[in-house]
């Protein structure tokens, strides 16, 4: 079933966030792999923020992603 607009917005927000702060590569990595990678990056982010580590975009995870913050990546060499 297609994603609702709200869910699509959440996914887009998460992609942007994970690319910026958790070094998620831009673009698809091949069918199936992109989603796995995103779950892995969500887990990294949840672990950092001491959220429950599910790998899923639950409400608490999205809420943290929406908060005002510093632009320096959390787990990456700044380059």
């Amino acid at each position, binding site marked *: 079933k297609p994603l609702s607009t709200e869910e699509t917005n959440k996914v887009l927000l998460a992609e942007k966030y994970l690319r910026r702060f958790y070094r998620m590569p831009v673009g698809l990595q091949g069918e199936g792999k992109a989603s796995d990678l995103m779950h892995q990056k969500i887990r990294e982010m949840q672990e950092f923020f001491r959220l429950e580590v599910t790998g899923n975009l639950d409400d608490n995870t999205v809420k943290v992603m929406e908060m005002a913050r*510093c632009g320096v990546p959390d787990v990456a060499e700044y380059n």
Partner: protein
Amino acid sequence: HFPRDLKWESTNVTFRILNYTADLNPKDVDRALRNALSVWSKVTPLKFQRLYTGNADIMISFGSKEHGDHNPFDGPGGLLAHAYPPGKGLGGDTHFDEDENWTKDSHGNKKFNLFFVAAHEFGHALGMAHSSDPGSLMYPVYSYAQGFPLSVDDIEGIQSLYGKNPDHEKFKPKPVAPDKCDPELSFDAITELRGETIIFKDRFYWRIHPNMIEIEQTLIKSTWPDIPNKVDAAYENPEKDIVIIFSGIRMWALNGYNIVDGFPKYIHKLGLPKRVRKIDAAVNIRDTGKTLLFVDEEYWSYDEQMATMDSGYPRSIEEDFPGIGDEVDAAAYHYGYLSLYHKHTQFEYNYDARKVISILRANSILNC
């Protein structure tokens, strides 16, 4: 720290302010930035010298969207600022998003305190990466707090790069965030808030939502910048859909997460005598409409309907609640049962039978 523990080779670090935000008087910007650097120089041997021309180690500027480093800002909210770790060229440079509304105080929605953001960014400019301790200055999410902003985690981090400041007296760092599974954990206050349970401890609160497995820990100031860092007691009046928060001799009313206009008020407006300077715990008994206010070894009963203190009070806690001792730190009420917290113990109390029915660790409510 950033990979390879990047740091300045000299303890004399220069900075230059290239431009100013339109939101603040330049003098206020100078003061905020200078104070933000001082936060770090107080605990290290670092000395900061301002340059007015030429290239400084830390070049400070305000810019919006793409502002010259191919690392664009995003308009109001979201990204507030960024800084580069020590190094040549861009290294140490600190950029603030001019699309934000910068302030020199804590007030207002979508306004950000320049001093706090700058102190965080200068942490990066000196070699500190993000911390996952929500009480530390180097936590990546913005929150406003009063007092000296560095936590133990921040100080240990910067001192492992540069060493201690031999000339300054010790600064009292902010303690690390309380651990919910610490067996000695006690609570400051507990209240319901529209079906959620809010537990206050030090500068933080935990939020337990019945439909969420995980328990959030947040700084009080992140959600309610106007409420003090220390909450003594809290209770929900579900009839009026408000939560009352007590801190010292003042109280605040929340409707949802918003502070009700006209607050804070003095707790003595409730009818408490002036000698009462602090309420230890408060709980509303839904079945009777009475709110119990625990103060030292006594408690009062407040009639919510009549908005008056019941006569015959204060009464002795020890006599009226046998089995729980003589003091209460926090209290909650569910379906005829009172949960009374003192130190690390939770007493489940049958209010009608006036009897303790079980004793648990206080943090069992936090799934520990």
